[in-house]
């Protein structure tokens, strides 16, 4: 479970996110939506422990990311919006590196790397340098590295950007499998129709303030998510 409690983050005098509070339960696919610059990436970076925040707290399965970051990070995997991977490395070396950092045993990593490399159809390029990859290929490698250590919580910043339609389709299946096992998938997105069909819960952020959150059906009611979002933005 992720508990976000009154989180405020400032960049100098500018308030990026203000007093954000909501929970993400086990088994949720949670969509986090908002316009560009609304504060989505800031909150995501705070959750995964990349950025500090000024006020409030974030608990990952009861542990604070502020006071116990290592234990929190062990349970999470993060896929950034723009996969800035180590381009001089081979894809397989990068995935192995991430697995080593999470102390993934040989059996688990073999099972997962083969499984996801096959799913995303990248097995034949795992020995190639990341430098030669397109954005979508890098995104797939970032996803495999994130999934290889069986995270309980998968946090992603616009994960579908750059992925081909088949990869999006397959990855949605992976997300559904994860939540069936009681894991959490939390991601930011601008693709509202996908979020509407895929996610059980949603939060909408506007200019750093949480304007609506709840189950998908509660938030959108009879309308489409897109319409609700545009109304709130308006």
């Amino acid at each position: 479970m992720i508990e976000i409690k009154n989180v405020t983050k400032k960049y100098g005098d500018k308030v990026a996110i203000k007093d954000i509070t909501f929970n993400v339960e086990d088994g949720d696919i949670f969509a986090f939506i908002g316009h560009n610059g609304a504060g989505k990436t800031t909150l995501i970076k705070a959750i995964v422990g990349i950025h500090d925040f000024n006020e409030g707290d974030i608990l990952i399965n009861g542990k604070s990311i502020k006071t116990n970051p290592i234990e929190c990070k062990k349970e999470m995997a993060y896929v950034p919006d723009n996969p800035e991977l180590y381009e001089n490395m081979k894809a397989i070396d990068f995935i192995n590196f991430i697995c080593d950092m999470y102390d993934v045993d040989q059996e688990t990593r073999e099972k997962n790397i083969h499984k996801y490399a096959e799913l995303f159809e990248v097995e034949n390029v795992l020995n190639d340098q990341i430098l030669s990859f397109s954005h979508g290929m890098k995104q797939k490698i970032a996803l495999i590295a994130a999934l290889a250590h069986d995270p309980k919580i998968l946090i992603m910043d616009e994960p579908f950007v750059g992925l081909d339609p088949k990869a999006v389709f397959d990855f949605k299946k992976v997300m559904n499998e994860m939540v069936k096992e009681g894991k959490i998938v939390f991601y930011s997105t601008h693709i509202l129709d996908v979020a509407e069909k895929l996610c059980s819960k949603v939060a909408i952020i506007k200019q750093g303030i949480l304007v609506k959150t709840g189950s998908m059906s509660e938030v959108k009611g009879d309308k489409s998510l897109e319409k609700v979002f545009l109304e709130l933005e308006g």
Partner: protein
Amino acid sequence: MSRTLKLLKVCLSQDMSLFKIKSKKASKTSNILVPVVFFLIIAVYMGGYAYSLMEQFKPMNQQYIMLTLFTFAFSIITLFEGFYKSGSLLFNCKDDQILFSLPLDKKTILFIRMFKFYAFEFLFNSMFMAPSMIVYGVNMNQSWIYYLVSIIALFIIPIIPIVISCIFGFLITYISSKFKGKNLVQTIITMSLLLFVLYYSFNMDALMNMLSNNAGTIDSFICKYYYPVGAYMSMVHDFNIINLLIYIVSHIVIFAIIIFIIGKVYFDLNSKMKSVSVIHNNKPYVIKTRSRLMSFIKKEFSRFVSTPVFITNAGFGLVIFVAACIAVSVKYDVIIQELVSKMEGVSPEVFINYIPVGLMALLAFSAFMTSITSSMISLEGKSLNILKSLPIKSSMIVLYKVITAMVIIIPCLLLGDIIVFIAFKFDIVSIICALYASILLPFIAELIGIMVNLKYPKMDATNDTEIVKQSMSSSISVFLGMGLAMLSTAFLIGLAMLGLSNAIIQIIYLVVFTIIALLLWLRLTKVSDKRFDDIQV
């Protein structure tokens, strides 16, 4: 033209962040104060050195020779530095995509990059040359014309070395673009060129002796054969507005011509350097479990070997160390004769006796002048967020980086050690001390490097050279290393002058530096988590 100027302004403000301090408010004062004090120290030191040099020429009433030597020396330094900077500053930059997509002539982009290179060298050289010019002007009661000419010369003098080094950078890039392993070829050619220049500069003894015996000859030699310095000195002695205009215009024309020539093939060559071999490696991929440390070293090492300027910068001092150890071992009789001839009253036995102490000094220079960690955080760039999201303490990440740097440095130092041990039949105490120093001294240098880089990270560089050669962090580390190496040698000489035995000198030296290492280590463990976490990309 106005578009070019606007772009130049944007690029300079973006990239010349050697003088831009990013920090939290609380530490802003100290962040600004440290480099300012640091640069002031250098300026005062250079001023003092210029004054003492002038005093030496005073009896002959030839104080102006100091100016000739200073301006020429910094032209040579700019040229030497430019050899391994120019290729990576001009080609294969991170902002290629945006710049080449703009409706601009390709030569404009080349001009902007060469101008950025020039701007950095101008600022850097000014820090060293301006004090000498002021010292001369004040002491010789020069008129305002002297100061005007000197200010113009500060702008003009870096141009020719930059043009020459850009031609070399272009040729090295052109040759390496023909090979599959471009980075490797680029590194090998650059390193070979530097070693070639260094070898011949060491073998110019006869010429330099002849010149140093007659200071006037040095001056006339430089002024006759090197126009940028010669013309400046001529205007210092006898100002002429026509000569000044020729001086300015000729340099600008040379700069423009080189942009015009290289600009013709710049885009094609840059594209070749960016192209990556996409031939698939058909070998089955290997899924292998490693310890965190080994995995981290592998990751850092692959970054190191894929960055030519990083290898050249770090590797040069180490190659010199090994070469010096071989030279000392093979030609020690010649070297000792040379030292005896320069230091009257000291017998050859004294030098032979103090070879273990000499090795310690050589180790100190090599270790302190090789700071790999001073660029390691900055080179992460935006991928720093990958590290930050990992379940590892920031202090461990920092430690892993220090260990990686030591893994690169120590084998080279040990190789040099072994050559000297065998050649001079070291006793066991000296062997143990030298081996310990080969671990301790790079550890200190790398601790300093990483602390400076954590304090002054440059996460938004457009190419690796800006980080490795032109960042605040690398500059401070180089000068701190230089200072530490000189202090360390002075300390060894001081101990030797007390008449202590080799063993005692080495032990005292190592104890002092062990204490320094411990203090640095304690400081790093205290600040590394916070400083690492504070870096935002």
